[in-house]
C-alpha cells in the first residue's frame, strides 16, 4: 500500500517532518511531563544556596572539623542487614540480574521494534540507568552486587575452575598509566549513544550495544582479571561507584571475609581519599556534564540554538554530538580555570592539575541532587511502564503476570511536591558539596586561612553550577531533535 501512497497529500507533512525538529528524547527514551519550577521557587532556591554557602563558611571560620575519619554504625549488628550481607543473598541477586540482562538482549533482538512495546528500552534507560543511579546515591553501591556482566563472568570463571582447575583470566598486571581511561572512553561512547545518537530507544540497537559492551567487559576481565577491570574499565562500576561515594551505606570487609554494612554520614565517602587519578577526575566531569547536557537539551534556549546549528550542519546527530562535546569541554575548562584561581587565591598550595584532582569529587553532590530532581517525576511516571511490559516483554500480546493492561497513573506525583523536592534536593546537594570541599581544603592547605581563601573560587563555581541546575528545572520542557 505504501507504494501507492505516493499521493500529494503526504508530501507536505513529510517535508515538514524532515525539516522541523522531531519530538524525541534526548535522555535516552520516554516522555517527560515536568512542569517548570515557578520563578519564585527558583529564586528562593538560588538565594538559599548562596545564603547557606555563607553559613557553611561561617562554621569553618570558627574551626575546621576533624578531617580524617567519620563516625559509622555497623548495620550488620541487626538481623535484616546480616541477611542482606550473606553470600547467598548476593548470589540470588546475581542470578536475577543476569536473567534480566539476558532478557534485555533477547527482547531487543527478537521482540517488537516499537520502543514502548519492548521491555528493553524501559528496563535499560529508566529502571536501570536512572533507577540504579538513585539507589547507588541514596542507599549504597548496589551495582557491585547487581552487575550482571561481572556476575556472568564470575559464574563462568567458577565453572571453569571446577572443570579445569584454572580461572578464565590471564591476570596480566593492569598498567598503572591506564588508570580509569578505558572507563572514560566507554562512558563517553555510552553517553553518546544515549544523548546524541538519536537512536537510543531502538530495541535492536540497544540489544546489540549491550551485547557489545558485555563482550568488551569480558575481554577486559579475561586479560586483566575481574577486579582490575571493574576498577579501571567497567564504566558503570566506576559511574555508580562515584555516585555511591555519597551514599549513607558502605560495605566493608569484616572478620573472616564476611561483608559488613556500615552506616555513615551522607557524602563522607567523597572524602575517602586525597587527589584522585586524573582519569577519574575526567570521568567525574564527563558524567556531570552529560547530566547537565541532558537537562539543557530540553530547554527553549537549546531549541533555538539547535535550529541554528541544524540549519548550518544538516545532521541532527552531529549537532547533538557537538552539544555534548561542548558541554563536556566547558566543564573541563571551567574546572581548570577554577583550580587556577584557587591556587592564586590561596597564594600557593598544589598545582592546577593536582587541585582539580583534589576537588573534583566535591562537585558530585551538586550533580547528584540535580539528577534526583531532574528525573524524579520521569522515574515515577515512565517507570510504571515496566508493569505492563513485565507481562509482555517482547510485545507479542502476552499477559504472563496479568498486568499487560496496566494503565500508567500520571497523577502519582503532584507538581508542587516535585517542585519542593527538586529545590530541597538541589540546595541540600549544594550545601553538602560546599561542606565536602571545605573539609578537603582543610586537609590540603597548610593554614586555615589558605584553606578558606582557596574556597572562594570553588564556591563561586558551585553557586554557578547550582544556579544553572535550578535554571534548567525552571525552564519549560521543550524537546527537540531525534
Amino acid at each position: 500500500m505504501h507504494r501507492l501512497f505516493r499521493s500529494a497529500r503526504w508530501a507536505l507533512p513529510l517535508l515538514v517532518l524532515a525539516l522541523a525538529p522531531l519530538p524525541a528524547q534526548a535522555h535516552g527514551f520516554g516522555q517527560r511531563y515536568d512542569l517548570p519550577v515557578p520563578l519564585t521557587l527558583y529564586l528562593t532556591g538560588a538565594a538559599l544556596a548562596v545564603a547557606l554557602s555563607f553559613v557553611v563558611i561561617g562554621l569553618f571560620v570558627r574551626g575546621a572539623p576533624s578531617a580524617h575519619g567519620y563516625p559509622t554504625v555497623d548495620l550488620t549488628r541487626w538481623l535484616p542487614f546480616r541477611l542482606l550481607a550473606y553470600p547467598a543473598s548476593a548470589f540470588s541477586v546475581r542470578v536475577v540480574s543476569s536473567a534480566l540482562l539476558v532478557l534485555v538482549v533477547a527482547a531487543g533482538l527478537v521482540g517488537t521494534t516499537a520502543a514502548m512495546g519492548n521491555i528493553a528500552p524501559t528496563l535499560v534507560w529508566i529502571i536501570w540507568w536512572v533507577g540504579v543511579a538513585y539507589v547507588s546515591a541514596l542507599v549504597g553501591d548496589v551495582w557491585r552486587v547487581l552487575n550482571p556482566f561481572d556476575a556472568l563472568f564470575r559464574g563462568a570463571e567458577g565453572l571453569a575452575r571446577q572443570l579445569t582447575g584454572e580461572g578464565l583470566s590471564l591476570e596480566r598486571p593492569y598498567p598503572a598509566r591506564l588508570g580509569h581511561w578505558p572507563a572514560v572512553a566507554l562512558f563517553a561512547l555510552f553517553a553518546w549513544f544515549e544523548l546524541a545518537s538519536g537512536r537510543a530507544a531502538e530495541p535492536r540497537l540497544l540489544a546489540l550495544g549491550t551485547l557489545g559492551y558485555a563482550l568488551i567487559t569480558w575481554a577486559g576481565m579475561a586479560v586483566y582479571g575481574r577486579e582490575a577491570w571493574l576498577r579501571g574499565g567497567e564504566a558503570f562500576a566506576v559511574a555508580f561507584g562515584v555516585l555511591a561515594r555519597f551514599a549513607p551505606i558502605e560495605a566493608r570487609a569484616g572478620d573472616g571475609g564476611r561483608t559488613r554494612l556500615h552506616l555513615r554520614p551522607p557524602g563522607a565517602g567523597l572524602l575517602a581519599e586525597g587527589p584522585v587519578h586524573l582519569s577519574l577526575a575526567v570521568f567525574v566531569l564527563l558524567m556531570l556534564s552529560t547530566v547537565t547536557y541532558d537537562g539543557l537539551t530540553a530547554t527553549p534556549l537549546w531549541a533555538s540554538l539547535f535550529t541554528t546549528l541544524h540549519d548550518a550542519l544538516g545532521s541532527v546527530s552531529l549537532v547533538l554530538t557537538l552539544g555534548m562535546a561542548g558541554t563536556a569541554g566547558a566543564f573541563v575548562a571551567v574546572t581548570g580555570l577554577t583550580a587556577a584561581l584557587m591556587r592564586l587565591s590561596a597564594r600557593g598550595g598544589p598545582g592546577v592539575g593536582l587541585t582539580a584532582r583534589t576537588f573534583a569529587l566535591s562537585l558530585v553532590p551538586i550533580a547528584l541532587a540535580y539528577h534526583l530532581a531532574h528525573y524524579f517525576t520521569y522515574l515515577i511516571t515512565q517507570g510504571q511502564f515496566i508493569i505492563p511490559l513485565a507481562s509482555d516483554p517482547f510485545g507479542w500480546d502476552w499477559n504472563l503476570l496479568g498486568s499487560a493492561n496496566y494503565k500508567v497513573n500520571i497523577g502519582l506525583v503532584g507538581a508542587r511536591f516535585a517542585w519542593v523536592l527538586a529545590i530541597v534536593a538541589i540546595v541540600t546537594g549544594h550545601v553538602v558539596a560546599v561542606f565536602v570541599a571545605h573539609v578537603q581544603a582543610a586537609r590540603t592547605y597548610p593554614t586555615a586561612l589558605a584553606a578558606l581563601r582557596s574556597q572562594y573560587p570553588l564556591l563561586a563555581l558551585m553557586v554557578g553550577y547550582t544556579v544553572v541546575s535550578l535554571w534548567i528545572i525552571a525552564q519549560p520542557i521543550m524537546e527537540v531533535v531525534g
Partner: protein
Amino acid sequence: MSNPSRPIASVLLASLALLLAACGGGGAPEHLTFEVTIANGALASPHATLTAHQGDTVTLVVNADEALTFHLHGYDEEHEVMPNMPTTIKFVADATGSFPFVMHIGAHSHDDGAGTCEATLPAGAPAPQLHLSAVADAQTGMVMASVEVEHFVLGEGDGSIASGHWHLMADGATVGMYMEPSATVMLEPGVHELVATLSDDAHCEYPVSASASVIVGEGAAIGEGMAMDEQDHAVETESEVNLGRLDVLPR
C-alpha cells in the same frame, strides 16, 4: 560532622516551610475549551502551550486538513481526526504536569481495522447508495476521484439517515479517507482499480461499495523516486509530529 551540620539542617527546615508557603493556589475548577487547528502538517492555531489548572474540565476541539491521529500524551487521549470535521476530546485534568500533544501521520491504526466491523443503519433509514467516477490528468499523473451518494450524509448527520465519510482504495490498498465528495491522489503510470466504500465515524463500513478503473499515462510525472522512497520509509516507521503541550498547573 554531626555538630556543624545541625544549623544547616535547621536552616533547611525553615526554608522548606517557606517554600511550601510560597506555593499558593486556590480557585474553583473551570470548564476550558481550546481549539487545536492543524494545517499543512503543523499547528495552525496560535497557542502551542495550553494552560489549565488541576481539576478543570478540558475540551479540545481538533480541526485538521487531513486525516490523522491526535494524541495527548500522559492523559493518553488518542483520537482519529477526519479532514475538516471537528473532533471533540473532553476530560478532567486531574493530574498536574506538562503533557505534549502530537499527531501521528502515516500508518493509521484504523487501516488495519477497516472493514472488520459493519456499520449499523439508523432505525428505518434506507440503505446508502454509492457511485464512483475517476479521471486521470495525463501530464501530472494526478487522479481525481469523485463519489455521488444517496441516502448518506458526508459529515455529521442528524441520525435519521446514515452518515460518515468515504474510503478510497487503489488496487486493494487504502489511499485515504475523505469528507468531501472528491479527492485527488497521485498514482504510478498504469491501470488502477479504484474502490470506494462508505464508513461511519468509527470506520465501520456500510455494506456498499463502488469501483472504477483509471489509466495513468507513461508520461505522467510521479515525483522523485528516491525522495519518495525515503518518505515512504518515514511513514512506515510511525512518525510523530510535535504540536504543543498542555500544562496542567497545581491549583
